[in-house]
């Protein structure tokens, strides 16, 4: 079967042996998978990918996902039942890799390795850590799963929803990691945002009726669509208001909007769908001024009911300013100032700076931009905030 797909019998044989070895060591402790044959093919497939990996690593990963798409029937004409079982195994693997017992960084690494088919070296490079460290992190995560005695089967229906939340969180974490910009050259660094989209697309294909997974995929597409316009020629951040919207990815926006438009009425409505809807409103707008801010404000209020967090409250305050003016927004921010999670947080200072700038309070805006710059742990954000303060300070009548 593997050799049919790869047309390379010798490599396929090695891969099968590896899979059988894995089965021999894992099944006695982890229990028999739902579909042993599918599992073997899957493990063999993955091992195969490692064996033939090299200059075409990326293209080959596309094959892996293609296999998980329904279209892949044309490559491997298996009975439907078999295919379903095989796909269930992919889902079980995702559930295992994203188990809440694992620390987030471990779950991320294991998911990229076992489900995404990335090599340990590629994952290590993506996170800028030595390969040995990443190997150790992955191996500890596997041990942790083994030690917890989790069987290789679908979670019970009662815990299915919660486990799916954990899966989506891990995928979203991979996506946000993809936006980490650090200094220095990143030759052949894996695009984590693209990997996250690929994995979430696979999840959506496996669970097409799950609205939140569709919402997560939509959110990623609608956020990533703005990627090309988000940074300038020298890597500096460009705020949403100043982005060249003609550089946004129209195809990704269209796909994201279709996904979230279908998911929302189907329900149940979850935080990713609401965030995707907000992103869709931004992506559809020709400019900041002509953005449907009342609708965005209403959606942030929904989001606060579904998943209240200090960051959501901050965004709601900014949307309030866009609808009702900076004074109303600043009043909303004042109400948050005593939240222990936000005290001293750079995002509170950054939001306050922005609203003071809107209100024409130059002195206060400069002070808040500087305070935000001193506290962020993102280098590009620090430069952006520093430049914002510098720009205001250079205006006539500015304080020293």
């Amino acid at each position, binding site marked *: 079967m593997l050799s049919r797909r790869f047309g390379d019998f010798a490599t396929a044989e090695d891969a099968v042996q590896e899979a059988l070895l894995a089965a021999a060591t894992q099944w006695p402790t982890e229990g028999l998978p739902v579909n042993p044959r599918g599992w073997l093919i899957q493990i063999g497939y993955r091992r195969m990918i490692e064996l033939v990996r090299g200059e075409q690593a990326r293209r080959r990963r596309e094959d892996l996902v293609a296999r998980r798409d329904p279209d892949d029937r044309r490559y491997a004409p298996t009975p439907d039942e078999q295919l379903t079982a095989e796909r269930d195994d992919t889902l079980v693997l995702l559930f295992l890799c994203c188990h809440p017992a694992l620390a987030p960084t471990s779950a991320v690494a294991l998911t990229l390795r076992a489900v995404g088919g990335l090599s340990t070296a590629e994952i290590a490079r993506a996170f800028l850590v030595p390969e040995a460290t990443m190997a150790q992190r992955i191996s500890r995560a596997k041990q942790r799963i083994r030690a917890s005695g989790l069987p290789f089967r679908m979670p019970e229906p009662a815990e299915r929803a919660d486990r799916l939340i954990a899966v989506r969180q891990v995928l979203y974490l991979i996506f946000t990691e993809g936006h980490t910009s650090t200094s220095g050259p990143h030759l052949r660094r894996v695009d984590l945002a693209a990997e996250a989209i690929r994995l979430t697309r696979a999840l959506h294909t496996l669970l097409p009726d799950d609205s939140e997974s569709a919402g997560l995929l939509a959110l990623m597409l609608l956020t990533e669509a703005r990627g090309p316009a988000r940074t300038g020629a020298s890597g500096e951040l460009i705020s*949403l208001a100043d982005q060249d919207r003609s550089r946004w990815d129209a195809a990704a926006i269209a796909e994201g909007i279709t996904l979230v438009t279908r998911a929302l009425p189907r329900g149940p409505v979850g935080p990713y769908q609401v965030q995707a809807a907000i992103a869709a409103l931004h992506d559809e707008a020709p400019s900041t001024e002509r953005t449907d801010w009342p609708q965005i404000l209403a959606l942030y209020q929904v989001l606060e009911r579904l998943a209240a967090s200090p960051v959501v409250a901050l965004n709601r305050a900014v949307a309030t300013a866009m609808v009702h003016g900076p004074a109303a927004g600043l009043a909303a921010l004042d109400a948050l100032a005593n939240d222990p999670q936000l005290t001293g947080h750079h995002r509170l200072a950054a939001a306050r700076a922005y609203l003071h700038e809107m209100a024409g309070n130059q002195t206060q805006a400069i002070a808040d931009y500087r305070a935000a710059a001193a506290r962020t742990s993102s280098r590009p*954000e620090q430069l952006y905030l520093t430049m914002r303060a510098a720009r205001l300070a250079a205006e006539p009548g500015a304080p020293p």
Partner: protein
Amino acid sequence: MKYMLLMQFSAAGADFPSIDTWTQDEVRAHIAFMGEVNDKLTAAGEWVDAQGLGGPQQARIVRAGEGGTPVVTEGPFAETKEFLAGFWIVDCESPQRAVELAANISTAPGPGGRPLNMPIEVHPVMSAPPAEL
């Protein structure tokens, strides 16, 4: 999130004798402890890098002079009275964990096998994803 842990000594502020006055066994125990720290970090999947640095006698301060030519000042840095003895870069789950690791390093044994409780500076490495602004 990555953190840099700095083993920074102040000649004036150190409340233990400098390592060249310790016995062989004390030095050995200290080095063994540092080895264990690195092994533990590696086993935990948190190790990124760690280096011990040459003493202040070997350090140089460099400034660009006329036309960008280097102007080198040699140590010892009597005026600053502070020097960097070594560093770790760790990649860990939370700031609390970074503090925990630093506290552990701080207990490295010194004279008489007693913990030095030396100061370890914890600096976050600027590596968070930026928020959309």
